[in-house]
């Protein structure tokens, strides 16, 4: 049980995929314009990661070493197709706003990275703990970025149609640049510097 919590916890801060390892930034920055998108992307991403880590840990002794990368990619691509079809079927609006970033989970370096670095060498329960931890770390990062971008870019927060919060007098004149792609670069750059300044991550 000790190794389960240890493998879970390391993904959240010490090897946070977004802020420490700087992996898989494409979906993080692209869909972080609203909290809805962030929640949807986290769910899709975490499902694929848990399932791929589980399957690869299960098959790790059967997959020949030389063809392991193509095998991993086919497993991940199949899982991504499943998620893509499920989203299209059950939540078409979310699927539309996430667009091609759902199929692009296939080439997300975090998932292939965990398959290669962790799941192909460890047991099933450790691999699932690792996937949960990395998924939580990814989710926290993308939620934090989209929280800042939605709040500053529109002046208010909403989650799946429920109005949560708005800054009085600000929502009429929001800082629209945070909704543009440039806003994402600015937010993540500033957050990275902030974490270094706080001593969470190491500088150069």
């Amino acid at each position: 049980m000790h190794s389960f919590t240890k493998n879970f916890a390391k993904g959240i801060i010490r090897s946070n995929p977004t802020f420490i390892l700087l992996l898989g930034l494409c979906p993080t920055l692209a869909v972080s314009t609203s909290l809805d998108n962030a929640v949807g992307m986290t769910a899709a991403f975490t499902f694929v990661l848990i399932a791929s880590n589980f399957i690869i840990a299960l098959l790790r002794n059967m997959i020949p070493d030389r063809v392991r990368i193509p095998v991993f990619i086919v497993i991940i691509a199949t899982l991504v197709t499943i998620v893509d079809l499920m989203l299209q079927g059950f939540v078409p609006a979310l699927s539309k706003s996430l667009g091609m970033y759902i199929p692009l989970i296939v080439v997300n370096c975090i998932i292939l990275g965990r398959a290669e670095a962790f799941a192909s060498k460890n047991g099933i329960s450790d691999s699932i703990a690792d996937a949960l931890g990395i998924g939580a770390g990814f989710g926290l990062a993308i939620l934090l970025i989209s929280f800042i971008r939605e709040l500053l870019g529109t002046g208010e927060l909403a989650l799946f149609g429920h109005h949560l919060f708005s800054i009085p007098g600000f929502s009429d004149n929001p800082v629209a640049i945070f909704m543009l792609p440039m806003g994402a670069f600015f937010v993540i750059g500033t957050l990275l510097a902030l974490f270094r300044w706080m001593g969470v991550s190491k500088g150069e």
Partner: protein
Amino acid sequence: MSNLIAIFFGMALVNNMVLAKFLGLCPFFGVSKKLSSAVSMGIAVLLVMLVASAVTWPLYHYLLIPYGAAFMRTVIFILVIASLVQIIEMTIKRTNLTLYNALGIYLPLITTNCAVLGITFINIDQAYSFIESLVAALGAGAGFTLVLIIMSGIRERLELADSPKAFRGTPIAFITAMLLGLSFLAFKGMI
């Protein structure tokens, strides 16, 4: 013809892969520290994008659609790109060793470059014809190479600049990308 020109410049400047669509960020930040490696990476991506578009378009329209298997496109496309990269790598190694030494280490990385898979999806989603997809791939690759070169030029200077301690390295690169993106916004009026 004017349609093709619009697609080329739209892909290269207005809907730039890196600055507007966030595709290919890993090489954008990973390989933009030196000008020479940025050029090699850009050309390698351009090449793979072009070949990948030329192969996936007929595959999708003449194989997947007639057999009702369009939902398989993610699996098929990534496999095609992975094998293409392997074939291109072997061909370059056999035919041009100088080019191989320049591009060699970047080619395997391109398999997991989302810009390559992204452009094949864009071609399908925008319902481009075969010629249009090739032009779109050319434009996307050219735009990617352009920003990679600009970025590496700026970063070579940034190494010597006296930026705040916490911002040194990657954070300042993100801020630079933001300013670069802002200046690319000006191209929006072009189309």
